[in-house]
């Protein structure tokens, strides 16, 4: 330790000292603004805090102006609007689901860490989202993971996918949270930039909702959980907020003005997190918590500044009291560390002893590191000297906001003009049969059990539906049968063709999936994965998609409760397809009424709900058969989606259908194959009059679902559809040991199953 400690006093005395603001990811004008706010140069510790909190990942500086629409266009009436208890801005949104219960859910990205170190990146992604949920006062009850990888047969995918899957399983399984859904999608556009999103659902009683704030002068600030180490320093600012090239060029993340000792990817310990869950919830229930915040991106910098900024007073923190894994850490490193499994609570002085006793019971390290002060400063001390003296609002909430320039890319017209209508199609039954086998065995359409069998879906004993069902469903109350269903969707091929429509399509599919289970869709969380905001084309995609999603949420009456933006998803100049991932939460009064996807009984009649048009732009068939992406995505009609959902929910409630399956990528034939294989029953299917067999089987028109109707219910069901004006065509019957499209082809279930289930094991086992 040769250099003198950079205290506030020292900063005032040495105004001209050089600070490594550029290495920490700050722009020149941002650094100037920090000097302006402070009226002096920042100390090293202050610079560390500002740099991580003003990073793209933490400040949303490029996306903020667009995200405002989710609030401005939020539905003001309908079940979704009425159910909102806590909206955007908190660690996760909270929705009233009735019977005194509230549900909180949120999806987040952990994309960049998962490429650098797949296992730990994916594992700590789960850890982070789970802490967001417990910080709201909720018990986590389920997780799901929307994943995007590069081409399935690319050698690097063999490195990334198994690691990501093992990390999700390794962390989630050890936490004891059922993994009930998610997606696995392959596309070459994710080769250098896989997407690892993680969603968590939590349940609480209304009175248990907690918000992150530090109120009450004299209240103690307690840091508890894992000790602070040197891992993940600059994870948010460097890894998640710059393009990859920048990172690899500079080696790895830097500490303040010196080389990093450890990687920017954090290392997870699920056992510690499990203890953190139990101890946090016990402290909540004992009424010992005034405010709480998890330590995720930007670690202590984020937790202290956000708690103080949200509260009424200031905060004083003694950094020497932070329990360390590595005693050589500098104060800057302690403030920036993203060591996992840590939380920060604000507790009244009289309750500190009881809080610490609960932590001791769960063998969780807990330390008082500061207190709430009157005034409005966040002051942090090291060895008795003041090294931070800031207005916490300027760190946490008043960061820079950019109106990034955006422009419709010049290739967009050509892409849309490249109509799939010209592609050669299967001409007869034999060619259709071959096309079906190619489709169901393609990596994107093949069974995902090789992945999902590595996740525990049974733990906690309340899983009613899990993958490969349309939505995961969890029972909340064993007495009444109240439950929730969640689905995540996002077809980036559609979004590439038209980002505005692509985002609306993502919502439509997720909404439809939830309704297919019998649950009523209520609210939305989103993870917006896009390229660099400094690229006008990627920024245009982001602006379009955000507007599309906000408009669609308003139309469907499902408010966005929270979520996450992940930018800089690109390798060099090549951005990923725009990938808005939309999670929809629905509620069901009695989970015994849920509708599974399997054709469970012979003799049930198969109905196709909705209208089929020739819509092949962005379709799975065009990708599998021709490696083609062009044209327009399928048309979205949200009024139709709402009607379809109403029908599916009524049919479930009144026992009119035995199975329901959303028709989406891969079209009717993919949905038929999945429902047959899940139920172990074949189907005899007739192509409806006036439809070309190929279009009937492979088109991806929206607003459609397949249902299996017991004969005794047929009249009632068909009447309901007719009265409400939903086209419903009887297209077949559950029967036999083969999937047969009459007059075209028959596929024995064994052959279909082999084709569908062998692909992923052959690629990755």
């Amino acid at each position, binding site marked *: 330790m040769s250099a003198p400690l950079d205290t506030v006093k020292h900063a005032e005395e040495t105004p001209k000292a050089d600070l490594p603001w550029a290495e920490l990811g700050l722009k020149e004008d941002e650094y100037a603004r920090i000097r302006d706010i402070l009226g002096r140069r920042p100390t090293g510790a202050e610079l560390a805090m500002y740099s991580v909190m003003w990073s793209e990942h933490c400040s949303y500086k490029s996306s903020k102006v667009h995200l405002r629409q989710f609030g401005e266009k939020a539905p003001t009436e309908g079940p979704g609007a009425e159910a909102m208890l806590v909206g955007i801005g908190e660690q996760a949104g909270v929705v009233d689901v009735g019977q005194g219960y509230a549900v909180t859910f949120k999806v987040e990205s952990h994309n960049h860490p998962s490429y650098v170190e797949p296992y730990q990146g994916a594992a700590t992604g789960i850890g982070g989202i789970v802490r967001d949920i417990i910080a709201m006062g909720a018990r986590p009850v389920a997780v799901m993971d929307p994943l995007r990888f590069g081409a399935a047969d690319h050698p690097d995918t063999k490195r990334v996918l198994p690691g990501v899957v*093992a990390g999700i*399983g*390794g962390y989630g*399984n*050890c*936490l*004891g949270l059922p993994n009930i859904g998610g997606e696995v999608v392959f596309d070459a556009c994710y080769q250098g930039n896989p997407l690892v999103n993680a969603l968590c659902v939590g349940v609480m009683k209304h009175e248990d909702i907690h918000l992150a704030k530090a109120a009450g002068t004299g209240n103690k600030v307690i840091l508890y959980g894992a000790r602070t180490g040197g891992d993940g320093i600059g994870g948010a600012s460097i890894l998640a907020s710059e393009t990859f090239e920048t990172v690899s060029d500079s080696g790895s993340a830097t500490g303040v003005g010196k080389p990093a000792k450890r990687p920017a990817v954090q290392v997870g*310990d*699920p*056992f*510690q997190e*499990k*203890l953190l869950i139990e101890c946090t919830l016990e402290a909540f229930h004992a009424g010992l918590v005034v405010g709480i915040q998890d330590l995720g991106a930007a670690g202590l910098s984020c937790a202290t500044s956000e708690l103080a900024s949200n509260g009424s007073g200031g905060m004083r923190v003694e950094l020497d009291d932070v329990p360390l894994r590595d005693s050589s850490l500098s104060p800057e490193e302690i403030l920036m560390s993203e060591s996992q499994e840590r939380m920060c609570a604000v507790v009244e002085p009289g309750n500190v002893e009881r809080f610490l006793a609960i932590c001791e019971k*769960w*063998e969780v390290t807990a330390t008082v590191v500061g207190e709430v002060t009157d005034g409005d400063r966040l002051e942090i001390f090291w060895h008795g000297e003041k090294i931070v003296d800031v207005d916490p609002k300027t760190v946490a909430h008043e960061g820079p906001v950019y109106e990034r320039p955006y422009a419709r890319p010049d290739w967009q017209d050509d892409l849309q003009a490249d109509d799939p209508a010209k592609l050669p199609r299967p001409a007869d039954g034999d060619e259709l049969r071959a096309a079906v086998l190619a489709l169901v065995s393609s990596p994107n359409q093949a069974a995902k059990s090789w992945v*999902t*069998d*590595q*996740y*525990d*879906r*049974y*733990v*906690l*004993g*309340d*899983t*009613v539906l899990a993958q490969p069902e349309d939505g995961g469903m969890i*029972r909340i109350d*064993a007495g009444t049968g109240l439950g929730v269903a969640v689905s995540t969707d996002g077809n980036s091929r559609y979004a590439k063709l038209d980002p505005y429509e692509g985002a609306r399509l993502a919502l439509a599919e997720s909404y439809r999936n939830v309704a297919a289970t019998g649950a009523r869709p209520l609210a939305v969380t989103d993870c917006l994965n896009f390229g660099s905001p400094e690229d006008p084309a990627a920024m245009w995609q982001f602006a379009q998609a955000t507007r599309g999603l906000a408009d669609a949420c308003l139309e469907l009456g499902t408010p966005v409760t929270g979520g996450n933006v992940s930018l800089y998803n690109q390798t060099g100049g090549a951005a990923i397809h725009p990938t808005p991932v939309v999670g929809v939460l629905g509620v069901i009064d009695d*989970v*015994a009424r849920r509708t599974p996807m399997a054709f469970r009984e012979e003799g049930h009649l198969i109905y196709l709900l909705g209208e089929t048009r020739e819509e092949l732009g962005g379709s799975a068939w065009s990708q599998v058969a021709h490696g083609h992406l062009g044209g327009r995505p399928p048309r979205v009609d949200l009024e139709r989606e709402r009607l379809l959902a109403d029908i599916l929910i009524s049919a479930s409630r009144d026992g009119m259908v035995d199975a329901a399956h959303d028709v989406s990528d891969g079209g009717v034939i993919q949905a038929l194959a999945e429902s047959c294989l899940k139920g172990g029953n074949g189907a005899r299917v007739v192509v409806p009059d006036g439809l070309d067999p190929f279009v009937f089987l492979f088109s991806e028109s929206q607003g459609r679902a397949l249902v299996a109707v017991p004969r005794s219910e047929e009249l009632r069901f068909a009447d309901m559809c007719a009265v409400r004006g939903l086209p419903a065509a009887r297209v077949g019957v559950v029967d036999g040991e083969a999937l047969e499209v009459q007059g075209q082809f028959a596929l024995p279930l064994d052959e279909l199953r082999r084709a569908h289930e062998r692909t992923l094991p052959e690629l990755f*086992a």
Partner: protein
Amino acid sequence: MTTRIGVVTFPGSLDDSDARRAIGLAGGDPVALWHRDKDLRQVDAVVLPGGFSYGDYLRCGAIARFSPVMATVIEQAKAGMPVLGICNGFQVLCESHLLPGALTRNDHLHFVCRDQRLRVESADTAWTSDYERGQEITVPLKNGEGGYVADERTLDELEAEGRVAFRYLGGNPNGSRRDIAGITNEAGNVVGLMPHPEHAVEALTGPTTDGLGFFTSAVKKLVTS
């Protein structure tokens, strides 16, 4: 009088609430036991649930074995109290030497969660008397270290003495020697298995209700004894 069956919660236990639910559905009175308490609260039987006790650091079940509660469980098990170890609980029983052998990393090196068919090989234990010998049941299996191993002599002995309680059917999911899914001690009061009967007690949430028999077996045995 209802039968009191304790379920131990270690730090890192995950399926403890499921086990308590299963006991309740079987007509028993579930009692939560804490790893630091030596006192078993007058229970008639004990379930060691699944999970990752103490993070499964060192070896699965290796640290749980030394917890205060296990001292009493080991003593009572030797005196004849029914004890069921599920998954991590099975690992704890092996580490405690209440059952022979050990559980090792699955041969394919992946965690596996699936609905598993089993054959009940012994209906003569405290936890299987409600089944018929040879009966086939399906319950969830979920583990990363479920490969049962023991030396050849021990395996021969287990088979000769009818102490293999369950075998895997339809494919060995983890490389267990001789397809062994679960075993019992000589007295038949201590049973350990990797699959999870407590996840197959309700039609709504389990693949079957085949697992309920474990708990009804214990409840009936204790009521009649």
